[in-house]
């Protein structure tokens, strides 16, 4: 057996529930049972319900209409996930892939195997940092509420700020404002009549909207106590590529293809003339 010791100043920030000297054991009876695998409630991961319309400002309604026309023509419009860019908030809570919620006293983790969907919701009483480095998922602070007064928390209220873009609500390309001043407020709780159902009331405050917009997302718990977790890797077999500002497609034979009717091939100016 070969042994090799590799020592370096590799950074680890260990958030241990129980293994830190002097730490108290985690009393999970204070918190709701949110264990297991949560799937979106049998509905497509869209933000706007059928027959409804997003409350966009005229500018962003026009942008959305351009986006829809571009998608119909074979483009991606404003939708960034085809490049494996993260969905960000609030789109993460479409729960495109199964979700796990891991509750610890200081942080509730939202884990999804999708595209950078994992979130940390800090419940340690912290204030907003003076400076937040923008991220697609934003910075989330939460507060547990015992709404029914039975001595056990049942609602997690969350506020998320500090996002970057581009972000859309879903694959339709419904856009959030490019100024990235979005604030997302959530209330997560189990359904009172059915603990296998969870709700997330998500209110988005964004300058592309005419006013705060609340959408209620439903998640359904897998009854299997040892659920099957899927690994989803966006970059694996992704046939979409971007060259300059155009999207192209990689065919099944690996060759470059147009994504739109009549699309010109990419400019090959950096390849030697003799090789054309």
């Amino acid at each position, binding site marked *: 057996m070969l042994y*090799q010791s590799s020592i370096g100043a*590799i950074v680890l*920030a260990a*958030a241990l529930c129980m293994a830190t000297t002097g730490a108290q054991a985690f009393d999970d009876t204070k918190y709701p049972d949110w264990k297991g695998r949560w799937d979106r409630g049998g509905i497509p991961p869209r933000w706007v319900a059928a027959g409804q319309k997003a409350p966009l400002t005229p500018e962003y309604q026009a942008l959305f209409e351009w986006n829809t026309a571009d998608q119909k023509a074979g483009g991606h419009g404003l939708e960034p996930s085809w490049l494996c*860019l*993260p969905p960000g908030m609030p789109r993460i809570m479409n729960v495109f892939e199964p979700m796990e919620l891991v509750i610890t006293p200081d942080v509730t983790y939202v884990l999804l195997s999708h595209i950078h969907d*994992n979130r940390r919701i800090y419940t340690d009483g912290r204030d907003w940092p003076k400076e937040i480095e923008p991220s697609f998922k934003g910075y989330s602070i939460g507060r547990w509420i015992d709404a029914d007064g039975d001595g056990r928390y049942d609602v997690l209220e969350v506020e998320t700020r500090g996002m970057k873009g581009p972000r859309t609500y879903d694959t339709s390309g419904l856009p959030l404002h490019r100024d990235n001043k979005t604030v997302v407020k959530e209330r997560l709780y189990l359904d009172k009549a059915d603990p296998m159902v969870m709700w997330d009331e998500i209110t988005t405050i964004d300058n592309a909207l005419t006013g705060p917009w609340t959408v209620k997302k439903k998640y359904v718990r897998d009854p299997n106590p040892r659920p099957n977790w899927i690994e989803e890797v966006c970059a694996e077999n992704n046939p979409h590529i971007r060259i300059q500002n155009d999207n192209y497609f990689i065919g099944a034979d690996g060759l470059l293809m147009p994504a739109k009717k009549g699309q010109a091939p990419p400019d090959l100016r*950096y390849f030697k003339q003799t*090789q054309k």
Partner: protein
Amino acid sequence: MMNGYAPLEIVVLPEVTYILIDDGNDSFRRIFTDGRDFPADAEPTFTGYSIGKWIDEDRDGRYDVLEVETRNFKGPRVYDNSGLMLHPDNQSIVRERIYLNKADPNVLQDEITVTDHALTRPWTVTKTYKREQPDWREDVCAEGNAHLRIGKENYMLSADGYLMPAKKGQVPPDLKYFKQSQR
């Protein structure tokens, strides 16, 4: 994953230990410590399927070592960005012993033993991690990624967004699917 390319966070719960890695793909591991066996038909993944066991090695009434075995991989996988590769049959077994350094509880060590058909024998490497104040950054591999693959060739995107060769003398991609009139 355990190279520590990006900061790790370890979340210990009775039935699962999570290792969250804020790298370009937001990877994370679940190490199941609920006494389960390896499933007969789990789908292969890049992270594999990990089962762990807590050990109280110094018999002080508190667990101090997490022994882990991981199987059920898919590929391609390499050990690091030198391209040192694991066998394409993906029959790797990875065993780990994870513990705090006895002299310094702000140092974590992971003795990682890889059993793989690309090796002449099991290979053990010890990785060391240092505990720091958390400062979580989002690192998105796809953002600003200038590399792309067309067929079996890798190319690059220039700073001005045009397709560029990645190797000296590289030919451009075959454009046969584009109409002749547009070339």
